[in-house]
């Protein structure tokens, strides 16, 4: 018996040792590409592109590695520290600042082909530019839109907004009130992450919150433009009762059953949620995509595009950039965009007719592309701590009615500036 157990253990350990990687073989360059694509169509499109690359570039082999949005930051940080990071890295631009300043990502500014550099608008490049370097190629972005129950809108006889003639924030508030009735709300705000949603939408009203002084240091200043969106949400929840307080801590997907069931007439969601709606909406549910309300700065809103970067340790940076260039050719960018139900950043890809169809609201989203700007906070060092420790509780308390606008301003400015100051000494 004892012999059998010993043999079984030895076999197990041998099996495990056999799984260990061997010494790197000579031959073609191998690049590891860590992708965060996760929706079935998106994974399929990305893997298909990797296959196409490998079929046409035998000298540069790309290995697809599946990553996860949920844990990418910690995983990358550890891999960078240990010198084992993937060569080509998929991430979001708001996650790049610390990696870029930490020297973990390669500066792509001298490596990018002219075609790719010219195809992506300057506003998008700014989201991945830190200091003088470009540390990622922004390729997919997602505006926030209103997903609405079309039948409820029609029944209430409200004006349907378009990208050319959107609702103002006060008009949106009126419409939400009109759509509210017993047990039914005009809008539901899923604000599990209240900070980025508020800040990104506040750009429409001219809100900036973060101000860079002549000395280059950033301070928080809560001005009139910053208050428009925040006050609208607060008043909808606590004054008009046209938005339930119960969804303030929810994620976007949590509100979908309520939308389908008629409890909410509108839900502000990311553009890519349409894929879930198509899959989950009951037969006969008519929905439509509306642009988010506009303020003094029109439909402008902040986004943090998905990016492709190259690790600073990658010994084959030129090859890695060539692969990125292939992945982001206009036709391929469209495939990635359709797979993720998002908008491509590339101007050529954006012209593709598949992205201008009225079906599933593609045209409404595409019409917003020109108004997308870098998320206000993404260049601010110390933003993650400010967000977690100061802004998230402050906004949550204000939206639930537990504090006033003055209280919100006071906390964001006083406590926030103390946090930011530590990062800017």
């Amino acid at each position: 018996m004892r012999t059998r157990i010993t043999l079984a253990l030895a076999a197990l350990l041998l099996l495990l040792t056999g799984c260990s990687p061997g010494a790197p073989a000579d031959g073609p360059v191998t690049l590891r590409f860590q992708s965060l694509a996760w929706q079935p169509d998106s994974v399929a499109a990305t893997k298909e592109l990797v296959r196409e690359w490998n079929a046409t570039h035998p000298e540069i082999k790309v290995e697809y590695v599946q990553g996860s949005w949920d844990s990418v930051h910690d995983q990358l940080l550890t891999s960078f520290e240990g010198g084992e990071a993937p060569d080509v890295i998929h991430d979001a631009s708001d996650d790049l600042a610390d990696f870029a300043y930490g020297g973990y990502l390669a500066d792509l500014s001298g490596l990018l082909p002219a075609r790719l550099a010219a195809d992506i608008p300057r506003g998008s490049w700014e989201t991945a530019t830190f200091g003088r370097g470009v540390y990622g190629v922004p390729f997919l972005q997602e505006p926030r839109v209103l997903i609405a129950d079309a039948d409820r809108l029609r029944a209430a006889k409200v004006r349907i907004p378009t990208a050319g003639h959107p609702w103002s924030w006060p008009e949106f508030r009126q419409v939400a009130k009109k759509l509210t009735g017993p047990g039914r709300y005009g809008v539901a705000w899923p604000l599990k992450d209240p900070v980025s949603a508020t800040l990104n939408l506040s750009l429409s009203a001219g809100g900036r919150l973060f101000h860079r002084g002549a000395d280059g240091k950033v301070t928080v200043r809560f001005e009139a433009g910053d208050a428009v969106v925040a006050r609208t949400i607060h008043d909808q929840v606590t004054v008009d009762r046209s938005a339930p307080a119960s969804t303030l801590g929810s994620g976007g997907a949590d509100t979908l059953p309520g939308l389908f069931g008629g409890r909410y007439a509108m839900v502000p969601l990311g553009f890519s949620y349409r894929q879930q709606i198509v899959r989950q909406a009951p037969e006969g549910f008519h929905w439509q995509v509306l642009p988010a309300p506009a303020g003094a700065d029109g439909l402008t809103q902040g986004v943090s595009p998905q990016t492709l970067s190259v690790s600073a340790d990658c010994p084959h940076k030129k090859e890695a950039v060539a692969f990125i260039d292939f992945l982001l050719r206009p036709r391929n960018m469209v495939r990635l965009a359709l797979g993720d139900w998002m908008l491509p950043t590339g101007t050529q890809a954006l012209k593709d007719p598949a992205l201008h169809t009225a079906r599933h609201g593609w045209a409404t989203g595409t019409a917003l592309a020109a108004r997308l700007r870098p998320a206000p906070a993404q260049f601010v060092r110390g933003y993650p701590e400010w967000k977690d420790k100061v802004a998230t509780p402050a906004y949550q308390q204000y939206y639930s009615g537990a504090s006033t606008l003055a209280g919100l301003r006071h906390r964001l400015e006083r406590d926030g500036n103390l946090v930011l100051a530590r990062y800017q000494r």
Partner: protein
Amino acid sequence: MRTARTPRTRRAARAGQYTALLGYLLFLAFPLLWLLSTALKSPRELGSPHPTWIPRHPTLASVRQAFAEQPLAPAALNSLLVALATAAVTVLIATPMAYVMARHRTRAARAATGWVVVSQAFPFVLLIIPLFLVLKRLRLIDSLTGLVLVYVVWSLPFALWMLAGHVRAVPAELEEAAAVDGAGRLRTLASVTAPLLAPGIAATALFAFVTAWNEFFFALVLLKSPRRQTLPVVLTHFIGAEGVADLGPLAAAAFLATLPSLVFFALVQRRITSGLLTGAVKN
């Protein structure tokens, strides 16, 4: 009067006990049942504003989708290998160490026990980067062997603590009696102590197995190649940005991921029960 009511009262009490037990079992099994229910619902039913306990139109579409989209079977095999090896190695190392710690109350043994307790307080975020560098030097990054090594180190303190308690529960007088009867040290350990320790060893193995089976972060960081990834890492591939999840396939995969742990528990549990009696009576 009293004799007439007693059987009825007993029956009522027994019915109450069974009802309470059933309720408790349902409470314990609820997450698993809910996972199963979610896994068998269609996307439309998952998005329904009126959630149902039992799927109206059960479908295996989510199970099929989960297997089609992610390498669940190879990942489960990796997890199984790692968890079994972790359990085996942990028990092999922890048993003699725990025996020494429990039986020899020296200053060194007390210091070792103290260190075991203190080592549990280290947050693993603090450990992961030095560990990563050590494993890199040993060429054990992206290797299941390296992962087993980490899990053994991670499980060992608690396993030691657990087993030392079990050793203390075995009366030293039994070993002394065996010695008086002429049994040597090894014979005493094998024939008297080991059978009495069997439940503790089984419980420790179970603990190490479940810890390794469920662990996510070390596996995420240490394994780079897709073919070596373990099940918890692959499960996160069903979760997208901002925590949006492909709920049906995620539930299906998560339900299947719980099954090996349950099977292992069922196997080991029998050992725990039988071990309580084995060796208690000296032949």
